[in-house]
């Protein structure tokens, strides 16, 4: 596999400007001759679709939800970063760039991260122009708050519903283009196959989830904006329908998959209440602005929190990391919580949680101010737990949240398959081994509004694409594969449901490849996954037919893919013998139990290549070079 990141020459701050000039342009009158297929309608997909349509391309958008407005970006809570420096507290494009590279534990590409920081300000301008109701000061200017891993306030927010408001902004721009007939939306469609003709991505086959029929669509480029693979772990903060299937099909057609072991475990989620649980719910990181994290100093202290005096509480983040306090990055906060719980100082019925306490904030700022900042989050917590966080501290526990890994893309956001681009969480690029809070929304929208419109134009203007319609033999072949898969899933007359296999896989991954990983556990998982997969294909039961709305079949198909992808995830974790960011190998830690990188051997992106069914995948490397942010042991103390 040839990996050319196509990073432009020049200083990091000049690269993008110069590159935009160097990219060939598509003549305005010719844009309407190009069909662009976009899979996924979250922040990345919707913003790309709207912008490309505004430029004049013919755009088709496919999403598995009933409306593009329901993509999982909608659930992002806390905010979106930008280097506006409105608070005058020392922020700059350079600082956002620096914080992001450092926060990612030096496993991201400098050039991409700098570009992201550069476009961050335009994203805020664009969203405000669309009418996104960001929080404001009394003077009418935009308000900011702080997030983990930064010492400046650069996060713009719309209460605890920032993702919702940004997505509705992108969705409204998208619907405007539907109105102008520049975009066609295909809801309740799930990508089943990528169609590659002469080595170039030229179309997709999707399953219509209502009729069960497979449909073929041809285009000049395919954009995957299909989100992350966190649901591989069964329990995660992702919505139920989030999955890895589209990315996985692309991988099998030749797209490199980078750093699958980089999975973010978010420190502040509502703890699991029992076996029945279908998903976990995030409590925004923004809460750590005002909430103080603590556990009792004594092991096995079962007193209720109000009975534990201040002197007997351990505000362990403030103690261990006085500079960043409760606002250390997510990977650091999650591991610290795990250490407390492993020491036997966890709280709640199960002992599997820590407190996030707002008593001081309520005292200092008044309840009204807290309601204004976090009202909907407190309501959400109340609905789920029947506890009132204004009076009783919240109980939180880490949970799988975000995928830093994803399809490998070059500087143009193009995968190793020409014509196949990947945007947003689905790609691997900008967050390295750990994403900072409020940077996912920035990346999704940066990719969609401000990067792909340029780089896709460059590709289309400089590539000769022969005519290839859905009558091409490759579409028939893709449809055949898709049909066969459904037939195989339906024909298994076993005893276990898709969910039961998914749960089994998730438990294995969480215990052996979760917050902390070691060689023995990873090897064990690597041995067990193929066994689960084998049972899946022999003992699965899927009721109903393939010719109508069948949610069990949908789930079965996704679980089939998780069972293959999980193996790659574990393999990647095993091969990366260093700790970095969210990937913590017990064999590689500092005396203070922090992640210890091994730059001499692992300063690279691991890019996995499908070698054929039944064969071990090939691990390729894209070396990472740092010229502007010199890697050091991360410290937030």
């Amino acid at each position, binding site marked *: 596999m040839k990996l050319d990141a196509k990073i432009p020459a020049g200083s990091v701050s000049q690269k993008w400007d110069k590159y935009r000039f160097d990219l060939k342009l598509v003549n305005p009158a010719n844009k309407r001759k190009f069909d662009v297929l976009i899979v996924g309608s979250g922040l990345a997909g919707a913003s790309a679709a709207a*912008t490309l349509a*505004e430029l004049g391309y013919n755009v088709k958008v496919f999403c598995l*939800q*009933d*409306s*593009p*407005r*329901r993509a*999982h970006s*909608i659930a992002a809570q806390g905010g979106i970063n930008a280097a*506006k420096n409105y608070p005058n507290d020392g922020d700059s494009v350079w600082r956002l760039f620096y914080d992001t590279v450092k926060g990612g534990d030096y496993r991201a590409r400098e050039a991409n991260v700098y570009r992201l920081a550069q476009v961050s300000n*335009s994203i805020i*301008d*664009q*969203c*405000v*122009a*669309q*009418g996104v*109701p960001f929080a*404001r000061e009394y003077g*009418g*200017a*935009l308000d900011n708050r702080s997030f983990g891993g930064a010492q400046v306030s650069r996060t713009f927010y*719309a*209460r605890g*519903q920032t993702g*919702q*408001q940004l997505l*509705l902004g992108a*969705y409204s*721009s998208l*619907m*405007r283009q*539907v*109105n102008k007939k520049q975009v066609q*939306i295909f809801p309740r469609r799930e990508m089943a196959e990528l169609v590659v003709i002469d080595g170039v991505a030229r179309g997709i086959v999707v399953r219509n989830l209502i009729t069960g029929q497979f449909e073929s669509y041809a285009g000049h480029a395919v954009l995957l904006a299909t989100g992350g693979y966190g649901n591989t772990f069964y329990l995660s903060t992702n*919505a*139920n329908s989030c999955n890895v299937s589209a990315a996985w099909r692309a991988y099998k057609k030749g797209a490199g998959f980078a750093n699958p072991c980089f999975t973010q475990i978010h420190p502040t989620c509502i703890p699991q*209440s*029992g076996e*029945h649980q*279908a998903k976990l719910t*995030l409590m925004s990181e923004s809460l750590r602005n005002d909430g103080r994290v603590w556990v009792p100093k004594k092991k096995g202290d079962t007193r209720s929190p109000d009975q534990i005096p201040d002197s007997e509480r351990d505000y362990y983040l403030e103690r261990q990391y006085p500079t960043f306090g409760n606002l250390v990055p997510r990977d650091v906060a999650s591991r610290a919580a795990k250490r407390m719980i492993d020491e036997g100082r966890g709280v709640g019925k199960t002992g599997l949680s820590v407190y996030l306490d707002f008593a001081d904030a309520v005292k200092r700022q008044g309840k009204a101010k807290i309601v204004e900042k976090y009202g909907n989050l407190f*309501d*959400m917590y109340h*609905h*789920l737990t*029947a506890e009132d966080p204004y009076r009783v501290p919240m109980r939180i526990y880490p949970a799988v949240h975000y995928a830093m890994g994803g399809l490998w893309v070059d500087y143009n956001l193009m995968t190793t398959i020409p014509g196949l681009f990947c945007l947003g969480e689905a790609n691997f690029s900008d967050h390295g081994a750990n994403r900072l809070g409020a940077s996912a929304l920035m990346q999704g929208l940066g990719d969609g509004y*401000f990067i792909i419109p340029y780089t896709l134009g460059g590709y289309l203007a400089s590539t000769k694409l022969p005519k290839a319609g859905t009558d091409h033999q490759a579409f028939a072949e893709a449809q055949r594969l898709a049909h066969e898969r459904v037939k195989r899933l339906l024909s298994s007359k076993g*005893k*276990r449901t898709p969910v*039961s296999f998914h749960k089994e896989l998730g438990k294995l991954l969480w215990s052996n490849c979760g917050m902390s990983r070691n060689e023995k556990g990873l090897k064990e998982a690597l041995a067990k996954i193929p066994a689960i997969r084998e049972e899946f294909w022999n003992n699965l039961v*899927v*009721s*109903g037919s393939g010719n*109508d*709305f069948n*949610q*069990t079949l949908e789930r079965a198909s996704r679980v089939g893919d998780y069972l293959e992808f999980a193996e790659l995830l574990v393999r990647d974790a095993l091969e990366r013998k260093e700790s970095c960011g969210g990937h913590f190998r017990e064999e590689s830690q500092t005396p203070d139990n922090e992640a210890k990188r091994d730059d001499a051997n692992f300063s690279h992106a691991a890019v996995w290549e499908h070698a054929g069914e039944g064969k071990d995948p090939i691990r390729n490397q894209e070396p990472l070079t740092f010229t502007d942010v010199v890697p050091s042991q991360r410290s937030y103390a």
Partner: protein
Amino acid sequence: MNLTLRVWRQKGPKEKGHFETYQVQDVTPEMSFFEALDKVNEELITAGREPIAFDHDCREGICGTCSLTINGQPHGPDEAATGCQLHLRAFKSGDTITIEPFRARAFPVIKDLVIDRSALDRVMTAGGFVSVNTGSAAEANSILVPKDKSDAAMDAAACIGCGACVAACPNASAMLFVSAKVSHFALLPQGKPERDRRVLAMQKQMDLEGFGNCSNESECEAVCPKEIKVCNIARMNREFLRAIFWSKE
């Protein structure tokens, strides 16, 4: 606890539907209502029978996908919550719970409890946007918005587009949904240039989709999981009157 569920089953859009009864055994008050449905479905699948089709996704009250009428109330008995946020602690062991899809002429049933709400997307397509191309935006702080206006716009923009308001209305009117979007933009300076054409276009599409009229029942406000207020409808009516008398559209 044990529950009896009376669930609407309907094979397809043109088939006749009916209620079927299911027993749920050994569930706990901490479980969400949907997790009880999951349990029933797992048992049905294992028995080789078709599970109950129902829409759900985020399971935290923000995506607006779930669309169940539970004991006659869209999203069930909890105030300011979606169906996915409802927990079994809202019920007593031995209760019989009736589950139907959101019902409205504009929301045809696809299967069982799954409905087609694309009508709402078409209303948005008609005018639920600010016409601004990527790249043409002014510096964000060059548009100052008074905090109270911005907060009121956010109150309206919090709508998750679930359609509970339609299901609760005796006329199956979508006025609360449409007015929330109209209000969100009407309150902000960014929305002002297109306010007339927006309200006219969205209301026209709303009528074409077969939604009913508003007769001030306020049932919509009562069931809205995001507590969108009916004053938005009043604001939309003012916007509409203003547009039909003074607009050049």
